[in-house]
C-alpha cells in the first residue's frame, strides 16, 4: 500500500489544482453554451486543422528522430557529440517568437536558403508561410526533443544481446529488426503523444507561420475567448474540448503501444559489430547533419543576430540580471517540484504495472499526469487567480504560482524520461532487494539512485530549460518587481528594441545551455548518454 500512496497523493494535488482552476473559471463565467460551440462551423474546421497539423508534425518529427537517434547511438565518439546533445535541449528553451525569427532567418523570403539559391541563380521561392512553415517550426522544436527522449533506449539494450549479435554476425538491418526495434516500439507511443500534445497546443507559431486565420488551432480560440471577449465560460469549454480531443487521441495511441519488455540484465554500452561499413557510416553522418541543419541553423541565426546587437549595453542592464536571477530560481524550483511529482506518480504506476499487473490503471495514471500539458497556462493561471483571490494576495504569491504552473508543464517530460528506467529498476532489482532485505532509504541510496541519477538529471535539465524559456503565466501575474527573462525579451520587442531583444535571446540561450549542462553533470554524473 505504501507504494501506492505517493502517486495517489500527487494525483490528488493535481486534481485539486486543476479543479480549483476550472471551478474558479466557471464561478465567474456567465454560463456555458456547449450547443453554440457545436454549431460553430469555423470552430469545427479549426479542430480539424489542429488535429491534422499536429498529426503531420508528430509523424515528421518522429520519422526523422528515429534515424537521427540511431545514428547518434551508433556513433558514440565524434568531436562535439556531448555539446551537440546539450544543444538539442535548447529549442525547448527558445521563446516561440525568437524561434520564429530564427526560422525566418533561414527559410524566409530573404533567408539563408533563398540567398543560397539566389547564389546558384535560382529564383527565391516563398514556401515558409503555410503548412510548410508550421511543419518546419514544429520539427525544429520537436525533432531534438524526440531524439533526446529516444536515445537512452540504446543504453538499455542488454550486454548479452550485443555479444549474441556479434557471435551471429548479424547485419545492421537484422540488428534494427531484432534488437533495436523491439526496444524502441514500446517507447514510441509515449514520445509520440508528448510531441503530439505540444503541436496540438502550439499557438503563436501556427498563427504567424501559418499564413492566416485558415491555419488556426483551438489554442487561438481559447486565447481570444479569454483575452478579447472575456468569455470565461467559452474559454473553459474550449479548454475542455482540447483536453478531451487530446485524451482520446492519446489513449488511442497508447492502446496501440506494447508494454515495457522485461529484460534480464543491466544494459551496458557494448561496441556493436555493424559500425564499419561505409554506406552505414555515410547514412549516420547524413542523419547527424540533418539534425545539425534543422536545429542548429535557426539557433545559429539567433546567436548571430544576438552578437550583432548592443551586447555590452544589454549586459550592463541591471534588469537583465534581476530577471535572470528570478528565471533561474523559478527554473530550479519548478524542475525540482516537477521531478518530485513525477517520481511520485511513477512509483505508483510501476507498482501497479509490475507487482499488481494492472497495466491499464498504470497507464491511465501516467496519462493524467501528462494531460496537464494541454490545459493552456493562461486558462490555468486565470482560474487560479479567481480561485485564490478571496483567500490570499495573488500578486505577493505570484512567483510561487509561476513555479507551480511551470512544474505542471514539466511533469509530462519527467514521466516520459523517468518512466522506462524506473520500471526497469523495479523489474530487475525488486526481488533482489526483497531477498536481501534492502528497503527504505537504503534502497534509494544503494539501488535506485545510482541507476536513475542520469535520467533524473536529464529530466531536471529538460524541465529547468523549459521553465527558463517559458513566458507562461508571468505576464498574467506580472507586477513591476516580477520579471523573467522571456518577459523582458517580449517587453524589449514591444518597445521597438529588436537589437536589445536579440541580445537578450542570446543571453537566455547561453544561460539555459549552462543550466542544462550543469544539471546534467552534477545530478547525472559523468556523461554517458
Amino acid at each position, binding site marked *: 500500500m505504501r507504494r501506492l500512496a505517493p502517486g495517489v497523493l500527487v494525483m490528488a494535488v493535481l486534481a485539486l489544482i486543476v479543479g480549483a482552476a476550472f471551478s474558479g473559471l466557471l464561478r465567474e463565467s456567465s454560463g456555458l453554451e456547449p450547443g453554440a460551440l457545436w454549431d460553430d462551423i469555423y470552430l469545427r474546421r479549426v479542430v480539424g486543422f489542429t488535429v491534422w497539423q499536429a498529426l503531420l508534425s508528430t509523424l515528421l518529427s518522429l520519422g526523422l528522430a528515429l534515424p537521427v537517434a540511431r545514428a547518434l547511438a551508433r556513433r558514440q565518439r565524434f568531436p562535439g557529440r556531448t555539446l551537440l546533445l546539450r544543444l538539442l535541449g535548447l529549442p525547448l528553451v527558445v521563446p516561440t517568437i525568437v524561434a520564429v525569427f530564427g526560422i*525566418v532567418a533561414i527559410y524566409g*523570403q530573404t533567408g539563408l536558403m533563398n540567398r543560397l539559391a539566389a547564389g546558384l541563380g535560382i529564383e527565391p521561392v516563398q514556401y515558409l508561410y503555410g503548412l510548410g512553415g508550421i511543419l518546419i517550426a514544429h520539427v525544429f522544436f520537436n525533432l531534438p526533443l524526440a531524439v533526446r527522449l529516444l536515445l537512452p533506449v540504446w543504453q538499455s539494450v542488454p550486454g548479452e544481446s550485443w555479444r549474441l549479435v556479434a557471435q551471429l554476425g548479424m547485419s545492421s538491418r537484422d540488428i534494427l529488426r531484432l534488437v533495436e526495434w523491439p526496444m524502441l516500439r514500446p517507447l514510441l507511443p509515449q514520445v509520440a503523444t508528448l510531441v503530439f500534445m505540444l503541436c496540438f497546443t502550439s499557438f503563436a507559431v501556427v498563427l504567424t507561420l501559418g499564413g492566416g486565420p485558415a491555419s488556426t488551432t483551438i489554442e487561438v480560440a481559447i486565447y481570444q475567448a479569454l483575452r478579447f471577449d*472575456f468569455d470565461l465560460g467559452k474559454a473553459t469549454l474550449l479548454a475542455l474540448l482540447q483536453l478531451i480531443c487530446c485524451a482520446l487521441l492519446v489513449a488511442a495511441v497508447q492502446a496501440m503501444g506494447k508494454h515495457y519488455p522485461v529484460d534480464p540484465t543491466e544494459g551496458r554500452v557494448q561496441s556493436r559489430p555493424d559500425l564499419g561499413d561505409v554506406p552505414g557510416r555515410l547514412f549516420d553522418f547524413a542523419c547527424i547533419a540533418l539534425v545539425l541543419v534543422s536545429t542548429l541553423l535557426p539557433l545559429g541565426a539567433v546567436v548571430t543576430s544576438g552578437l550583432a546587437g548592443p551586447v555590452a549595453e544589454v549586459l550592463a542592464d541591471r534588469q537583465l540580471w534581476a530577471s535572470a536571477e528570478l528565471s533561474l530560481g523559478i527554473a530550479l524550483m519548478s524542475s525540482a517540484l516537477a521531478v518530485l511529482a513525477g517520481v511520485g506518480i511513477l512509483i505508483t504506476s510501476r507498482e501497479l504495472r509490475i507487482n499488481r499487473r494492472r497495466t491499464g490503471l498504470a497507464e491511465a495514471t501516467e496519462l493524467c499526469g501528462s494531460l496537464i500539458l494541454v490545459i493552456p497556462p493562461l486558462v490555468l493561471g486565470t482560474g487560479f487567480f479567481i480561485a485564490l483571490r478571496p483567500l490570499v494576495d495573488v500578486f505577493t504569491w505570484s512567483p510561487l504560482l509561476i513555479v507551480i504552473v511551470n512544474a505542471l508543464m514539466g511533469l509530462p517530460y519527467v514521466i516520459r524520461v523517468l518512466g522506462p528506467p524506473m520500471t526497469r529498476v523495479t523489474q530487475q532489482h525488486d526481488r533482489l532487494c526483497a531477498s536481501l532485505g534492502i528497503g527504505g532509504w537504503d534502497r534509494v541510496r544503494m539501488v535506485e539512485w545510482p541507476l536513475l541519477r542520469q535520467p533524473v538529471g536529464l529530466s531536471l535539465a529538460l524541465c529547468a530549460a523549459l521553465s527558463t524559456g517559458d513566458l507562461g503565466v508571468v505576464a498574467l501575474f506580472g507586477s513591476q518587481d516580477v520579471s523573467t527573462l522571456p518577459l523582458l525579451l517580449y*517587453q524589449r520587442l514591444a518597445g521597438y528594441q529588436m537589437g536589445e531583444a536579440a541580445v537578450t535571446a542570446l543571453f537566455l540561450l547561453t544561460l539555459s545551455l549552462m543550466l542544462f549542462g550543469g544539471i546534467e553533470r552534477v545530478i547525472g554524473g559523468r556523461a554517458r548518454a
Partner: protein
Amino acid sequence: MRLLTVTLLFLLCHPLHAAEPPTLTVYTYSSFTVDWGPGPAIKAAFEAECECRLEYVATDDGVALLSRIRLEGKDAKADVVLGLDTNLIAEARATGLFAPHGVITESLPVPGGWSDAVFLPYDYGYFAFVYDSTVLTAPPGSLQALVDGPSEQKILIQDPRTSTPGLGLLLWIRKVFGDDAGTVWEKLAPRILTVSKGWSEAYGLFLKGEAPLVLSYTTSPAYHLIAEGEGKYAAAAFDEGHYLQIEVAAKLASSPNPELADRFLAFVLSQGFQTHIPTGNWMYPVVELESGLPDGFETLVSPAIALSFTPEEVARNRKEWVQEWLTALSR
C-alpha cells in the same frame, strides 16, 4: 500596564506611520513601465510634487489590463488604470467599476475632440502601413491602392482577435469601405504574407525583410530616426485618412486614495507627464508641449483625416466584423 504598552506601541509606530507617504497604485501595461518607457520619468515627476509614492502594476497590454480589472472587480488594489484604448472603452464602462475624472477636456487638441467624463485621453496615434523606402520606392497612396496593388508585393498584418493594431485595421477597412469590407478583405487576401498574433511578430518579420509593408503606427519611423539614427523607414500616407487610436486613463470607483487619484489624472495632462510621451511611448501627446514635439516628428505623416468609430459602435459590431474577416480570409 496595558495603557503603558499601548502608549509605547503608539509612540513606536506613530513616527514611522507619519513618515510613510500614501501610495498611489497605477495599473498599466508593461511597455509603459519598463526602463526605456515613459513610466519611470513620469513616476519621478509625480512623486516630486505629490508627497506620495507612485507604484505601477504592469500587465501585457491594454486588453490584459481590462481582463485584470474585471477579474479583480471591486477588490482591485488600483487607484488608476492607464492604458486602455478607445476600442475597449465601451466594455470597460459596462463593468461599472470606473468613476468620473472631473477634468475639463473640451479644449484638448485630440483629433475629433474629447468629451468622455470617465475616460481621460493621455496620448494618441494613427495606424499606418510602414515601409522601407530603400526597398519600396512607390508605396501605395491609399487603402484602395493597397487593396488593388500587386499580389507579389506582400504585407504583414496582425490578427484582430489577438492584437490591437489588428483590430485597428479591421475597423479602418470597415470605416472606409462599409459593407463592402468583406469583399475588400477577399481581394486583399493574396497580398497578405501572414497574420501574426501580435505587433512584435509582424514588425520583427518586417525588419528582417520578409515583406515590404507592415501594419504599425505613423509614429514608428520616429523611433528608427530618433533612437537609431536610421531614416529609411516611412509610413505610407493614405488619402482616405488613417484610423485613430486614443489611449485613456481612468479612476477606479473603489480607489483607496480618491484625492490622490484625481491629482494624478490632472497631472496626466500636465507637461511633466506629456513631455515623456513622444519618445517614451512613441505616440502623440494630448496637449501642446512647451518644448514642442521632438526633432524628427516633423518628418512623420500627419493624417488630414482621422477615422474612428465610437466605442459603442465597436462594442456592438466587433464580433460580427471579426467573423466577416475570418470568413473572407479562410476561403
